[in-house]
């Protein structure tokens, strides 16, 4: 069944059932209940279908990604989570047999239309991949990559922005004396934060994160989760994760995918405490992985 509409949170709270103790809901949410429909949408997806050759992988996905919020995308392996967000920045265009159909509205225009300027789209929608992938260059050059590519900056300006991005990614102190070392000399968790710095240096509006912590140790994961919470005031973040606790900790809204369809979408607190769909509940409580 295609994604359901979302109840007003206030109504839901009064019917709250017991929250399973092992799921922690993050504390620094906006205290007041917010009205979903009144929030500005960064990305509106309508009826998104996706095909790998002849095989359909996504079926009529419809979802609203709200500005300056973290939207988590969860679901079992192979359910289409990564496929879905990879449609937003059209990175799937690299592969001949992958096709998308439907509407993804971003800044008033359909991302999937052939008129879309991919270079500009990807400047505004950045992506962090599962495997940390620093470019084969120095730390500085990695972060400066997007800046040099999209902007004309003098040297001082460039250096400032690089430092700024590294500070905002909470990695400046660790690398400030390593700026001329190769990016892949850093540890896994540091590399991923470097990739985040690289992505935000170019000043995108949206950050797509495709399981950014799955290849990273728990301590570094915690740092990245803190970072996501800090970043959301400036960026809209869509986070694909197979780790439900992470989704519960970090996100404002959660979409549950199953076999290419959005089964349920709503505020994270509701999804994890009182999901409307039985399938969602079964996944949340671990009846299937």
């Amino acid at each position, binding site marked *: 069944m295609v994604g359901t509409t979302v109840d007003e949170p206030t109504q839901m709270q009064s019917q709250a059932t017991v929250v399973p103790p092992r799921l922690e809901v993050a504390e620094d949410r906006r205290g007041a209940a917010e009205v979903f429909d009144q929030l500005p949408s960064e990305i509106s997806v309508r009826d998104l279908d996706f095909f790998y050759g002849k095989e359909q992988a996504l079926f009529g996905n419809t979802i609203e990604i709200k500005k300056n919020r973290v939207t988590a995308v969860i679901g079992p392996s192979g359910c289409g989570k990564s496929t879905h967000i990879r449609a937003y*920045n059209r990175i799937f265009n690299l592969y*001949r047999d992958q096709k998308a159909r439907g509407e993804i509205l971003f800044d008033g225009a359909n991302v999937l239309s052939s008129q879309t300027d991919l270079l500009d789209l*990807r400047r505004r929608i*950045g992506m962090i*991949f599962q495997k940390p*992938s620093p*470019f084969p*260059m120095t730390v500085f050059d990695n972060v400066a*990559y*997007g800046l040099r590519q999209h902007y004309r900056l003098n040297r001082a300006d460039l250096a400032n922005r690089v430092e700024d991005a590294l500070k905002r990614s909470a990695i400046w102190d660790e690398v400030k004396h390593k700026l001329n070392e190769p990016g892949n000399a850093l540890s896994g968790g540091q590399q991923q934060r470097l990739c985040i710095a690289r992505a935000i240096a170019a000043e995108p509006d949206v950050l797509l994160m495709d399981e950014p912590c799955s290849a990273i140790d728990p301590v570094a994961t915690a740092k990245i989760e803190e970072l996501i919470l800090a970043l959301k005031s400036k960026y809209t973040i869509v986070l694909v994760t197979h780790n439900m606790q992470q989704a519960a900790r970090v996100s404002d809204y959660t979409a549950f995918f199953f076999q290419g369809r959005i089964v349920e979408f709503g505020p994270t607190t509701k999804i994890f405490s009182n999901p409307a769909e039985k399938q969602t509940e079964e996944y949340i409580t671990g009846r299937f992985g």
Partner: protein
Amino acid sequence: MSTVELEAPHNPGVPRGAAQAAARGHRLRLGDPIFRVVATACGLALAVAMFGLAGVLIYNSWPAISGLGTSVLTTVAWSPVNHQYGALAALAGTFLSTLVAMVIAVPLALVIALLLVELVHPAVARVVGTAIEMLAAIPSIIFGMVGIFVIVPFIQDKLVPWLLTTPLGGLPGIKPGPQFQGGGVSIFTGGVVLAFMVLPYITAVSRDVLKMVPQVTKEAGYGMGSTTWEVMHKISLRYANSGIVGAVFIGLGRALGETMAVAFLIGSLFTALPRSIFDPGTSIASLIALTFSEATDKIQVSALVELGLILFLITVVFQIIAQIWLRRVQRSTGGRA
């Protein structure tokens, strides 16, 4: 003696019991050691071959080395009639024709590799790649024949006259020197044909090396909003650069040693340095090819062998450099090239 002595050294992949069981049979005791010895001997034969080659070359060039000293490398003219054994003209010709070849072949190889890796469907890439590799299968004399019957007239009758009317025709290195004979049979022609003989090697290695760039890294580049060319030159080429260097050295090695086509096309001017790439000249390999059979004077033969030794040493050094650079790519990607 105990069975253990007859075992092959413990291969980590083989359960110990299996090796012992294998050695236990009486009939089988001799098979394995003989096999091992014979195989090892054949392996070592390769090393023997190379050192034998080097040794024979040194031995046979000794009379020239001791008799002529360094004059072979410093004298320009090769004129056995006048007892002159200078290889400088040949070295210059080798160097210049190789230079022309690489200037053409390396960029060409890189853009073709770019096409094969990024721009076309894998099936098309296979066909195009195979077609380019067929260039490597065409024997040298055929390049030479097509060169002399088709390319040489074209360059002599069309290209050079046109070029001399343009400002390019006055540049040093292009402006015809005193030995100019029309430009058809010249260093340039040799270099151009040489370029297409080494192209498949550089292309194949570059393509293999570029394929080793991890897909995630390239996706990250595209994800930053880069064009295909930007990903290629800022990321892929940087990632694979030791491999590209290795590819270039492999091309260099082949270009230096190419004999027949160059012999057809570069001319046989042994006695003077070329002033322009459109002058005729010679190369070490073609000098040997053209004069060895008629060489009667012992010193002449020995001097030719010395030239061969020089060529051998240069190509060995280049091959080793190429191997070292290619190994660097292997190490950084963890794969086998």
